[in-house]
């Protein structure tokens, strides 16, 4: 561990835009600290943007948490002397003096990130000790199971879940009650309930969170489902990359057995139920329900055609219900608090809450649970704290690799299954990746397609070959070799893969391409017609030029260019030689007057 007693955090929002400017303040502060002999006890670090641009540069002193704003290099000496040597606050630069409201939150619950949330699925997460069944019980755990087994018939349970209008949180949003009803209706000596904890969406981690932080809620829900369907055996299919979750589930199952909450004759009702864990090897497609069942049965994880649906012929051809972790986490509260309580939350056709994993260009990265119908803007700006570095919002990608990109004009759309689908995206498992103005949408489409292409199981021809062909076309476009005919072929191929693929992986793989084509068509055209990447991301299309009106001939860029592609005399306008340029972007970063143009 470090020996530093204090840390001065310098934030001037210049981490990638103009490294030179900030280095000054950090450098000057370091020099001043050295001067007063504190170099060994005070650490000075330069940090990424905190999104308080108008108050920057900021210097925050830890651990005392005093915030100074609009600090200039010339203030450094005074700041070090006053704050570090004399242990007084330098009122003049104090953030409060500049109108910044600073505070220390005694409890994390009060910050906007949490206060805007509404937690049903995550109700116990971070509150109870997941390894102690008593704590789960203390928060009404297993009361729902008790109620179901002692007061209700299976049909009543199904009716209640139907009444709640809960829809599956694993992606497709199929009504959970209906799914249970279909399986309950089947005559069969054996039925199964499977909890889908494969969570393959890159960036999503809500299921892991629930399993690690509240495993009993899933066990209880599965037992309830088992009773409703007439299944005595459940399986949790969880990816092997989640060792903590697996461990907690194992422990949870053992504890539940110890307390007679799993096993024979639970609550003396005559209902017996047990749960086994099956580890998934981590292929994305194994989250698809039929592939998942093949995997449990010991076959290669590849989807089967549907119909037959699992509810009629699932695991070992027996009627089977597969539900997502988050779906199940909602079950006990619905049983205890009632279907109408649950259906009072949310929108017309999407009830309850949804957990989102916020990521990308957003200030508060993390998991949030909000009522259906919350707008994208509320989630991204109020809870997520907006876009770092004061950049403009460009799009939000929802639904992971199966979803699409939603542009700024739709930020006020209330989030639910149908609205997202209408916008050409989907709810998916709840990934939400925010993109700022520096994102190239063709590149984004390419990124997602690369993922699906790699994850295609290889069974059906459109997905196996088609996703690669799409990727090849996108590659061509981002390298500046695309034509308008390629765009036609890309769109046509996308539409055909959607309808022809065997499973939803292939059927949804084109969504990121089609949605970006829909909303950012101009960007595609710019790539193929003007051979230009407007966001300056696609390396082969970026051209660096120097604006002669701004260039002051300082020569910094020429010095930083690794291949000597910039020439010019001191105090005269410099020129970048495009054929030599390797598009590293150094020049644009070092120029103090923003004279280097990227585009």
């Amino acid at each position, binding site marked *: *561990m470090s020996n530093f007693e204090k840390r001065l955090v310098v934030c001037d929002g210049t981490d990638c835009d103009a490294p030179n400017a900030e280095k000054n303040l*950090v450098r000057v502060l370091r020099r001043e600290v050295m001067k007063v002999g504190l170099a060994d006890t005070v*650490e*000075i*670090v330069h*940090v*990424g943007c*905190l999104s*308080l641009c108008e108050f920057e540069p900021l210097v*925050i002193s830890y*651990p005392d*948490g005093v*915030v100074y704003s609009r600090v200039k290099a010339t203030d450094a000496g005074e700041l070090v002397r006053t704050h570090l040597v004399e242990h007084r606050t330098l009122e003049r630069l104090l*953030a409060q003096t500049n109108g910044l*409201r*600073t*505070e*220390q*939150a*005694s*409890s*994390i*619950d009060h*910050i906007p*990130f949490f206060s805007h949330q509404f937690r049903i699925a995550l109700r116990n*997460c*971070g*509150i*109870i*000790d*997941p390894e*102690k069944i*008593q*704590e789960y*019980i*203390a928060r*009404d755990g297993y*009361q729902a199971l*008790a109620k179901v087994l*002692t007061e209700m018939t299976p049909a009543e349970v199904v009716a209640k879940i139907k009444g709640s209008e809960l829809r599956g949180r694993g992606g497709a949003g199929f009504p959970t009650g209906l799914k249970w009803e279909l399986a309950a209706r089947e005559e069969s000596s054996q039925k199964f309930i499977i909890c889908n904890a494969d969570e393959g969406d890159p960036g999503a981690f809500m299921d*892991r*969170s629930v399993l*690690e*932080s*509240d495993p009993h809620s899933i066990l209880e829900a599965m037992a309830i489902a088992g009773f409703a369907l007439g299944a005595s055996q459940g399986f949790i299919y969880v990816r092997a990359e989640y060792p*903590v*979750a697996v461990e907690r589930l194992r422990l949870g199952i053992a504890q539940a057995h110890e*307390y*007679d909450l799993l096993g024979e*004759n*639970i*609550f*003396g009702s005559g209902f017996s139920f047990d749960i086994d864990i099956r580890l998934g090897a981590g292929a994305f497609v194994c989250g698809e329900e039929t592939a998942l069942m093949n995997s449990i049965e010991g076959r290669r994880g590849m989807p089967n055609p549907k119909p037959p649906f699992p509810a009629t012929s699932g695991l070992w051809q027996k009627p089977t219900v597969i539900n997502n972790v988050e779906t199940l986490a909602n079950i006990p509260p619905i049983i205890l608090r009632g279907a109408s309580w649950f259906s009072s939350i949310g929108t017309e056709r999407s009830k309850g809450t949804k957990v989102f994993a916020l990521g990308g260009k957003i*200030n*508060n*990265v*993390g*998991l*949030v649970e909000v009522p259906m119908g919350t707008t994208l803007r509320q989630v991204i700006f109020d809870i997520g*704290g907006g876009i770092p570095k004061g950049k403009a919002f460009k799009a939000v990608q929802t639904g992971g690799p199966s979803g699409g990109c939603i542009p700024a004009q739709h930020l006020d759309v209330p989030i639910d299954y149908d609205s997202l689908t209408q916008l050409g995206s989907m709810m998916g498992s709840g990934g939400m990746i925010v993109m700022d103005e520096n994102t190239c949408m063709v590149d984004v489409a390419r990124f997602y397609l690369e993922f699906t292409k790699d994850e295609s199981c290889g069974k059906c021809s459109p997905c196996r070959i088609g996703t690669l062909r799409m990727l090849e076309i996108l590659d061509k476009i981002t390298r500046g070799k695309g034509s308008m005919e390629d765009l036609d072929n890309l769109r046509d191929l996308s539409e055909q893969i959607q309808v022809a693929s065997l499973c939803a992986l292939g059927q949804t793989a084109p969504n990121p391409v089609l949605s970006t084509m829909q909303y950012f068509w101009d960007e595609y055209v710019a790539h193929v017609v003007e051979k230009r990447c407007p966001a300056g991301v696609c390396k082969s299309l970026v051209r660096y030029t120097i604006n002669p009106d701004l260039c002051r001939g300082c020569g910094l860029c020429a010095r930083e260019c690794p291949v000597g592609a910039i020439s010019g005399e001191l105090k005269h306008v410099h020129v970048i030689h495009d054929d030599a340029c390797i598009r590293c972007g150094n020049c644009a970063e070092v120029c103090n007057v923003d004279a280097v143009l990227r585009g």
Partner: protein
Amino acid sequence: MMTIERLRSLSEANRQPEEFEAVVRVATCMATGGIAAGSAAVLDVLTNELRERQHVKVEIVRKGCIGMCRLDPLVDVFVSGQGKVTYVKMTPEKMQRVIEEHIFGGHVVDEYMLHLANGLILDDYVVLEG
């Protein structure tokens, strides 16, 4: 056999009292995010320290994820009559001080709590160089 009555009484018995009586409850996040950030080391300091002092009235809770892993390790301290205090980005050293000053001394260590400016979380920073 589990009965409803037994479940209810278990529930009652394990419910967290609104007011702790001379009980300190310390909770750390022990889900993947927390573990990755080093909450195990923080927890070790706590357990070792408490064992040394043979203090029985401190309860250690290993809890799950609250969804803001970038502030991990998080430590919640509940001292009787004072409600919950959340410390963020904890280290074994910081934990040592919280033990001394807060758990046994009764004084909240303001500096380790979450720092906000205009509602934005300041502690959630990424060091670029330093």
